[in-house]
């Protein structure tokens, strides 16, 4: 069977995108608030997973500081998009910095600012941290994320400290979230297939050889890290505005762990994997919520035992890494040819029989 490529593939992709957009529009109108939120959470996780995959999967750096960048993005966006009244409502313990109270910008700008703030932070961290070896890089980035969290918890006049910010304006609707998700996917696909993407993978596969071929390894890593931080900042901002409250306790290592789970499950180094993983984990996360509540399985009865859900997820992560390290997709990407080989695509109009121009080789 011939591979599905060229115009046919493009047409199929366009059709799929349109179909999904229609689905989203319908969902936005008909789904109840809870289900819609889960759907949008999937979209946010797509952005977050791709940002982590960019650094960990495609550049080969083990960064564990994602929650920190998300926090910076979330707080920046929130503080810029909230109105003065909303801020004053929150900062009852200690007044917010005056100039900060006055600033309110349109949401798209605030979102962008969140990304940029996270990117700047990422750039500053990258310079020292990326000179370290894998495991040290992991701990250093984890350390930075913790430092950020502690600062956010203590900077009362700026962030409202441990109280967090409540009542964030709900600008992050279905359209915004999925537009960002689509942009993230598009960007990643284009990047990975380009010469720059090749350079990233070369750095990942063999840094020494990459340098010998003229690639500025350090600079490539820094750029990758900075772009990833930008995406994480946007993702964090979206998350905050969908949930409409943020506080430092949201941005712990557990959050990074969730995203890591998505990436590992889907396949480190696969965009398709991250997308599928985002849906799978987000939906599973909600579906298994019952595990944290009272259970009645007939033979076993428990009162609410929060934590059982995370037990399942931790075990899942370990199972994947122990038995199927490459995750669902490994480093492969989706292609229409895959579906065709599995017999899931309707045959092209002209030649169905073997022996025709598109027949089996």
């Amino acid at each position, binding site marked *: 069977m011939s591979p599905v490529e060229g115009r046919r593939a493009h047409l199929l992709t366009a059709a799929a995108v349109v179909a999904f957009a229609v689905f989203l529009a319908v969902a936005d109108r008909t789904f109840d608030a809870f289900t819609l939120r889960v759907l949008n959470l999937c979209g946010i996780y797509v952005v977050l997973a791709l940002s982590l995959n960019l650094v*960990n999967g495609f550049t080969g750096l*083990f960064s564990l500081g994602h929650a920190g960048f998300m926090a910076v993005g979330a707080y920046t966006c929130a503080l810029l998009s909230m109105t003065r009244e909303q801020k004053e409502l929150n900062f009852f313990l200690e007044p917010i910095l005056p100039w900060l109270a006055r600033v309110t910008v349109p949401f798209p700008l605030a979102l962008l600012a969140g990304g940029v703030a996270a990117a700047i932070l990422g750039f500053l961290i990258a310079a*020292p*941290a990326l000179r*370290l070896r*894998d*495991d*040290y890089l*992991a*701990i*250093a980035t*984890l*350390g*930075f994320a*913790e*430092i950020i969290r*502690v*600062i956010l*918890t*203590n900077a009362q006049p700026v962030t409202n400290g441990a109280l967090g910010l409540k009542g964030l304006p709900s600008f992050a609707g279905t359209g915004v979230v999925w537009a960002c998700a689509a942009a993230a996917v598009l960007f990643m696909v284009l990047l990975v297939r380009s010469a720059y993407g090749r350079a990233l993978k070369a750095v990942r596969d063999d840094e*020494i050889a990459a340098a010998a071929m003229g690639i500025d390894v350090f600079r490539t890593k820094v750029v990758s890290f900075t772009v990833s931080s930008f995406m994480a900042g946007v993702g964090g901002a979206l998350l905050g505005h969908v949930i409409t409250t943020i506080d430092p306790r949201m941005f712990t*290592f*557990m959050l990074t*762990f969730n995203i*890591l789970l998505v990436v*590992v499950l889907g396949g*480190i180094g696969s965009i398709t994997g991250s997308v599928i993983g985002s849906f799978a984990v987000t939906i599973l996360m909600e579906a298994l919520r019952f595990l944290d509540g009272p259970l009645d399985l007939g033979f076993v009865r428990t009162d609410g*035992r*929060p*934590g*059982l859900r*995370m*037990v399942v*997820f*931790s*075990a899942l*992560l*370990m199972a994947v*890494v*122990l038995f199927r*390290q490459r995750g669902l997709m490994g480093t492969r990407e989706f292609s229409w040819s895959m579906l065709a080989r599995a017999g899931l695509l309707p045959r092209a109009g002209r030649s169905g029989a073997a022996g025709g121009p598109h027949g089996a080789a």
Partner: protein
Amino acid sequence: MTLPLFLQHLTNALSLGSLYALIAIGYTMVYGILRLINFAHGDVFMLGAYLAFYSVATFLLPWWAALLLAILLTAAFGVVLERVAYRPLRDSPRISVMISAIGASFLIENVGIVLFGGRPKGVTVPPVLDVKLDLGGVSVMSVSLLIPVLTFAVLGALVWIVQKTRTGMAMRAVSTDLDAARLQAIDVNRVISFTFGTGSLLAALGGIMWSYKYPQLNPLMGTMPGLKCFIAAVIGGIGSISGAVLGGFLLGAIELLTIAFLPTLTGYRDAFAFVLLILVLLVKPSGLLGGTQVEKV
């Protein structure tokens, strides 16, 4: 800042530091041999404390028996952990092992939440350790005196094992070059199991002592100390046992003395360790007592 007050702070710093040291040793031993950051180590610390607690509370053992039982059980757990979560990945890329370690850490923590419940449990401190001593204007709980003594005793024992016994020599061989050690007919698996067992035993001891000093147990009690103790090990020189002890004391001292002199920074306490870590990694990544490492092409 009066002298007695300063001495008070110093004593606190000493006992916190030795707790950190006990836990840091486990990290450094495992990293030295496997180049693995055992993220689950802090949770092993928690496990030891809980096992001791339940031995007393549910099985009504005397405290010293509970302690013994707990540290032995935890040592065994450490060995099992290595077998299940790390050994299968020994030839895999390091990222995979690290992910497994992170997964194991979360798994243990959440199993703890499920089994033990998220609400803190109060520990009854053994009477002999609950004595308030007054030494020249400084009031110290007896437990705070015992901990440093215990730490140094343990350190001495470990140094003796590593330098003077066959097992210790095997450990040093494996940490220098695992494949070469294998070729010398050293049973690498046994050495690694021994390392994990010992490290976990020490973590359990640390956890139990911690629970005597801060008598509130919760399943997440190991997370932050775990991270800090790894940092302590890095500061002192990862792979070096004396480095871990030095790092532990240094961290404890810096943490408590900084807050003592600058109380406004109390909220930032947890961040000190991380700031120190970043400084060390920038200036001398091999740590205070570590040697320089060369990577062969």
